[in-house]
């Protein structure tokens, strides 16, 4: 290999080991510069690092060791406080609304790109049952600490009756339900599984965002209650987004069929969604369905990738801040509605902020520990 510019081993190692900045990665790419030998060298370095990372190590049973430690140290065995379960399960069941009678007219529908449109005839405010949410919130605060344990061990967790699974901002989790359904939780999310959940009766409550891969069972539909919406299916994969601060609940179906209802209004008949459908439901229960949505993009977060298409900057910033648990905000209201198309995978927050600022012809300013996206001409 002709080395008029010898390889910077330390730099290549940094990039391969995932400890590099955007600038350092760019520097390595620049050094490689299309030279196949340099490319091959760097790829070998990557393989060495990745191979070492993935080398099998002997496994040890942490749960068993912890159980012994609890006895030895006299720790309370209630890392899963049972005193909370009854209130969680009872609050969930109390929020179950009466079943929707089949003869009522269907929800007003519009089919167009997924954007919220106010109802022509304002409907009664749904009064989304906050009971389960508040109880789950209270339970969640107590349980979040203990559950943070199981959630962080990167193994799917089989739930104990009447549990709430909580992720904080900047945290993801994976839950395996008793029927085999897998749920991926996004940051700042609460999934409540009542004590009555089993293979014959499958209902969960969600606040936040989750992707459900539901085990098929025609006899026992799987139901997700999120915000003012109930999504039911028999065996499907779909994403539900129902953050408390959002104005809408969104359901996107990847495979199968999902039946969507907003039971808070008695005039509703469930709407059936198929693969590629994205439904958004407002508080007034106006439902909009967009067909041919890229659900893979919408659910790319389950693979660690955030994708935004023509999304207003303020919404992008909200999502990014939650994903990274960051102090990131739009510093000028005029920028908030500018549409942004971008995707992020492994970047550091600082780099993401730069990309977003550039996308709207703005810049990043720091105010204390907060990163702000501000117009270029504004004062620092």
């Amino acid at each position, binding site marked *: 290999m002709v080395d008029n510019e010898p390889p910077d081993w330390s730099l290549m190692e940094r990039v391969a080991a995932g400890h590099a900045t955007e600038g350092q990665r760019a520097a390595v790419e620049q050094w490689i510069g299309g030279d196949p030998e340099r490319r*091959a060298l760097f790829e070998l370095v990557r393989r060495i690092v990745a191979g070492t*990372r993935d080398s099998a*190590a002997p496994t*040890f049973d942490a749960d068993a060791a912890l159980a012994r*430690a609890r006895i030895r140290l006299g720790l309370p065995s209630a890392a899963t406080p049972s005193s909370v379960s009854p209130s969680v399960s009872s609050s969930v069941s109390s929020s179950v609304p009466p079943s929707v009678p089949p003869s009522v007219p269907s929800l007003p529908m519009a089919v167009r790109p997924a954007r919220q449109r106010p109802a022509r005839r304002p409907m009664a405010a749904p009064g989304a049952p906050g009971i389960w949410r508040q109880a789950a919130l209270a339970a969640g605060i107590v349980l979040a600490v203990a559950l943070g*344990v199981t959630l962080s061990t990167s193994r799917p967790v089989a739930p104990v009756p009447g549990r709430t699974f909580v992720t904080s901002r900047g945290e993801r989790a994976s839950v395996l339900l008793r029927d085999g359904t897998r749920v991926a939780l996004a940051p700042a999310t609460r999934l409540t599984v009542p004590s009555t959940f089993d293979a014959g009766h499958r209902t969960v409550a969600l606040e936040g965002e989750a992707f459900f891969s539901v085990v098929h069972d025609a006899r026992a539909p799987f139901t997700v209650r999120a915000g003012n919406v109930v999504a039911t299916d028999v065996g499907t994969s779909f994403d539900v987004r129902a953050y408390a601060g959002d104005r809408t609940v969104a359901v996107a179906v990847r495979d199968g069929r999902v039946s969507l209802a907003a039971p808070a209004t008695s005039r509703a008949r469930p709407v059936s969604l198929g693969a590629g459908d994205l439904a958004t439901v407002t508080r007034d229960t106006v439902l909009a369905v967009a067909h041919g949505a890229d659900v893979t993009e919408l659910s790319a977060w389950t693979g660690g990738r955030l994708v935004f298409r023509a999304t207003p900057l303020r919404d992008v910033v909200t999502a990014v801040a939650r994903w990274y648990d960051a102090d990131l905000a739009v510093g000028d209201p005029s920028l908030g509605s500018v549409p942004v198309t971008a995707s992020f995978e492994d970047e550091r927050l600082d780099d993401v902020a730069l990309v977003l600022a550039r996308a709207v012809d703005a810049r990043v300013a720091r105010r204390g520990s907060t990163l702000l996206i501000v117009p270029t001409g504004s004062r620092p």
Partner: protein
Amino acid sequence: MNRHARGRPPADPERPAVALVGGGDDWVARIRHGDPSAFEAMYLAYYQPLCAFVARCIGERDRSEELVQDLFCRIWEGREAWRPAEATLRGYLFRAARNRALNDLKHRRREREFAESSPPAEPAPTPEAGAEARDFAAALAAALAGLPPRCREACVLRWQYGLSHAEIATTMDVAVKAVEALITRGLKAMRIALSAFG
């Protein structure tokens, strides 16, 4: 608010991670105040990697578990006065584990520091990969085993456990510059050993 690696996206829950999101420095404060759930979180998060690391150091499985369990128990028993001096919890734990491992070796009069005979890193099972991938994995394991012990230790801490240079420096009780040199040296040696694959 130092709950996790600042500025980094959330860890993939499906992939084993040594550095836990939602833990770290926040746990230290809570453990000092006697919060058992934070202690248990730390236990479950670090038990596997610390045992694996100690097992490499001393060449034994069962004893490595005893040493790690002792470490955690000591932390809990002395929690009120616990003031880890290292910048990160992970750095503290790996350093403490290593110290225990080396002391254990010393007391048992065995000279096997990061020994050749320690459980070799078996090639990760790659059922879907072809023969080339398996060959590479086997050659990589052999190349690692062929590194000088401290070189290998630094490289393993860096690539297998994801420790930063500073954390490795505190674990191995050497200067950060020395860590960088060890890793660079190890990488170059591995590259030569594996040149048939590049």
